[in-house]
């Protein structure tokens, strides 16, 4: 029979490689200065879905919401074995917080009528871990956070969860949404054959942009449209078209999307400034360290 799985992934700036020029003077983040990567725990979510397909059959569809540049992570997902990828992109989705994001994703994922939805536990740019649970609530799916192990039998999922200071095994009815831990698995490597094939996969917006570059500024709108549609059809015929949906395609209520649908506002952002305050230097010598220890004992910090 097989299961219909959807994996939600996010392209994120690699916050572990933040360097000086990634932070602007005003304390905001210059995302362009950071490499964009496949959010680490979303890789584990993809792997979990691929393992379900390996064992039971079915399909794995990967959905991301973002700019056309997020297609990089979709191509990576295709290389690892995803059957289909969908880019949800729309200017009217800009400035969405987690509530609006989970609403938009619920409209897109709902259209796919999945049995199983997999999300990474959290994304490294915000670390909020909110979109997975909120998406489950909006879909009306059983939520299983912090998944490490999954076994499926019919319409029932047996899940082992890492709950911080222990583990819990529970049975849940499908449809269900799982947020997957880094410790659950390791994403499989991409096969060279798939890399060669899917590096050419494109979403319509990417195709339109490259046509614009190829034909130059003098091209008529008709010529651009004709060439775009020719290339789109050609990619679709070769199974290399990344689906692209906007908010109208997924039937989203606009007042629940983007800034309008986001209750939270960023009031203030400060970059973390190091205190650089008073400090005292001690030499790594017996005498100097002896003096430091004596001082700490005297002021009751230790002892």
């Amino acid at each position: 029979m097989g299961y219909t799985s959807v994996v939600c992934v996010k392209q994120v700036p690699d916050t572990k490689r933040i360097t000086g020029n990634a932070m602007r003077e005003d304390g905001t983040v210059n995302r362009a200065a950071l490499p964009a990567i496949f959010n680490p725990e979303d890789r584990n979510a993809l792997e979990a879905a691929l393992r379900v397909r390996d064992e039971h059959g079915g399909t794995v569809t990967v959905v991301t919401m973002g700019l056309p540049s997020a297609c990089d992570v979709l191509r990576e997902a295709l290389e690892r074995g995803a059957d289909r990828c969908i880019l949800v992109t729309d200017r009217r989705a800009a400035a969405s917080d987690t509530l609006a994001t989970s609403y938009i994703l619920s409209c897109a994922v709902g259209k796919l009528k999945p049995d199983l939805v997999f999300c990474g536990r959290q994304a490294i740019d915000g670390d909020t871990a909110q979109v997975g649970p909120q998406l489950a609530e909006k879909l009306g799916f059983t939520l299983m956070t912090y998944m490490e192990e999954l076994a499926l039998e019919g319409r029932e999922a047996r899940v082992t969860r890492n709950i911080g200071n222990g583990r819990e095994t529970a049975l849940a009815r499908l449809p269900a949404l799982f947020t997957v831990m880094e410790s659950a698995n390791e994403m499989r490597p991409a096969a060279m054959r798939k890399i060669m094939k899917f590096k050419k996969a494109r979403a319509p917006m990417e195709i339109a942009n490259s046509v614009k570059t190829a034909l130059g500024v003098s091209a008529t709108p008709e010529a651009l449209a004709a060439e775009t549609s020719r290339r789109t059809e050609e990619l679709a015929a070769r199974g290399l078209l990344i689906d692209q949906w906007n908010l109208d395609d997924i039937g989203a209520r606009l007042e629940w999307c983007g800034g309008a649908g986001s209750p939270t506002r960023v009031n203030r952002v400060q970059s973390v400034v190091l205190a650089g305050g008073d400090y005292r230097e001690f030499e790594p010598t017996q005498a100097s360290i002896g003096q430091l220890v004596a001082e700490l004992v005297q002021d009751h910090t230790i002892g």
Partner: protein
Amino acid sequence: MEDLNRKGEILIFAEQDNGVLSEVPLELLSKGRELADTLKVPLACVLVGDKVGGLARKLIQHGADTVYVADDPRLKDYQTASYARVVGDLITERRPQICIFGATPMGRDLAPTVASAQRCGLTADCTDLQIGNYTDPATKEEQTSLLLQIRPAFGGNIIATIVNPRMHPQMTTVREGVMHAGPPNPARRGQVVPVEPRFQPGDLALKVLERTMRAPTCNLRGASVIVAGGAGVGSREGFELIRELADELGGEVGASRAAVDAGYISQEHQVGQTGATVRPRLYIACGISGAIQHRAGMDQSSKIIAINRDPDAPIFQVAHYRIVGDLHEVIPEILRALRGPALREPES
């Protein structure tokens, strides 16, 4: 704009496990009391579980005016849907202006589910909460006495202040260990209000088969001294030296993410953005370069000693005492000084 009920109470989710109250609601109560007094509104807790009514007293002693108790055998095990139903129904009925959860695995599962159903904003993992004003940059309209939700973001590289100016209630989760639980006041009085859970089909669909709780082998948040090692420790065996110093000082062993990722020590020892937030009396950072993610978890420690061979290591910028040197030589010197005759308490 909807009715924001700025006169509503503050509601804290009082997490318990198997009838044992967690530490985090007590931390939240001390901050919640401060916020409630500033706003001049009552402070309430919601306690959910089976045979948990006895815990209400402790919550009142720590600052709650009201404790809502949902006591039901079906609430024995935490389940997202059933707990979210109880908390969500209570929010709909009582209309608190602020809801606070601990940013524990349970709180980070429950709060987004409740927020999604309420269609309200939620700010995760706050490290501070304040009451303040907010001016909408577009309309210039000013709102007074909003909850300012302060959290590190972007891997700890920025501190953001988030507000929920338009929707009700203002909801947040707060990191464990960053707020201090106050002492109990046995004379404090409050009211206990029973809550009848109204489950809907599917709320109890989950069957918990087994739970194995690991006895924590380390208690970083409760430690007054932490000796932490980083990549500079160099090996799993190298942590023996860190452990030796921690034992000598009656403290705990901490670690940076680099040391955990290298497999030198288990994750429960990790201090920082993705580990524990700590503020001990003394923090000794050994061979830790001091990535911002690590500093975010320890820079509020009362005294920080940093030992590193690299004089430019960022950890030195938050240290009160700097020792530029090899930890493998410095720590034995510290041990020698601690065990030396000059420091021994005179024996009576």
